[in-house]
């Protein structure tokens, strides 16, 4: 068993080196890089999928938020409309009631005035009668003259009419 020179170059030895390097290259490529690249790619794929999913979720949430905002705005508007129409109706109704009340009051006032007038006329008439009979009685007592009551009454009524 001999030794080679410390520094020597041989075609065969270089060839064996090339061959060994090729085998090592294949080992590294197939047993190290291929599986690691596969795992890295799978992980990148998964991360991308997660990002995509998150993005989709976000878009959905945004759409829902928009929907909600819109419907809330709609509801507010509707509530406003309802309030306004109710207010309007209430105003109209209260005006109607007021008008009705006014009318009734006017009627009642008119009727009361009428009845007062009637009562007054009645009273005046009664007083007239009373005065007439009183006058006749006084006159008959004073004059002691036989005067027919009806003539006296007529004369006194004439008098009263003239007086007012």
């Amino acid at each position, binding site marked *: 068993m001999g030794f*080679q020179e*410390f520094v020597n170059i*041989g075609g065969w*030895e270089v060839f064996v080196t090339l061959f*060994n390097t090729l085998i090592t290259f294949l*080992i590294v490529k197939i047993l*190290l890089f291929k*599986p*690691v690249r596969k795992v890295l790619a799978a992980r990148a794929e998964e991360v991308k999928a997660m990002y995509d999913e998150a993005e989709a979720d976000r878009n959905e949430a945004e759409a829902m938020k928009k929907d909600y905002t819109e419907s809330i705005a709609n509801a507010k508007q509707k509530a406003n409309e309802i309030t306004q129409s109710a207010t309007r109706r209430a105003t109209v109704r209260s005006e109607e009631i007021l008008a009705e009340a006014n009318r009734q009051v006017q009627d009642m006032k008119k009727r009361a005035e009428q009845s007062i007038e009637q009562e007054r006329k009645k009273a005046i008439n009664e007083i007239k009668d009373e005065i007439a009979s009183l006058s006749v009685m006084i006159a008959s007592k004073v004059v002691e003259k036989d005067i027919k009551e009806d003539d006296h009454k007529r004369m006194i009524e004439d008098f009263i009419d003239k007086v007012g």
Partner: protein
Amino acid sequence: MVEVNGPKVYTYLFGNKALPITETMVNYWIVMVFILLLCLFLTSKMEKIPKAKQAVAEKIVMIVDGLVDQNMGKNCRQYSPFIVTLMFSSVFGSLASMFTLRSVTGDLNTTLGWALIVSGMIIYNKIKTNGFVGFLKGFTEPIWIMTPLNILSEVSTPVSMSFRHFGNIAGGLVISTLMLSALSALSSALNLPIPLFQLGIPGVTGLYFDLFSACIQAFIFSMLTMAYVGSAKE
């Protein structure tokens, strides 16, 4: 008497004197088996959420991909496995000396083989980018008189790469061997009962000549490969 020898010749293939099976080859095969087992270990039971060893495998791939992107430009990741091959072979081939094996990279044939592959890649990429005529024309730039120098620089690339790597590791080997025998001589000269000097000092120097040198040379070789091939693509 100290001897620093080349790799041992174990036997000859088919008994042919031109086809020796050397220590370097055998050690390379041992290193290859180690790399094979390492790859199998690192990538066994891969999961979506990485455990420690899978994280190491992913980190190796990502670091080398990052280096390749940085030094060679985008879309060069098909070179990453070759860079890792060089790094693994070089580091483990050099560190074999820590396990009493002769360094695989302490043999010029190994580093020259790698450097020739790199040289082939450089030429292939130059032809692919500029066309064959463009590649030939590249030698006459900036002026035709530079042609011999350009050819020389093309040839010197693999030579310098291979000699740098081989020289560093083989130099370390020579220094370690010489120092060990010197320390042994010192111990026996002082009539020490145990070879005290050989005990700790070679370990400290081995830290540089075996560990540091092995790592830095593997890194330099890989970085140069990326830089040369990357610039050949432009």
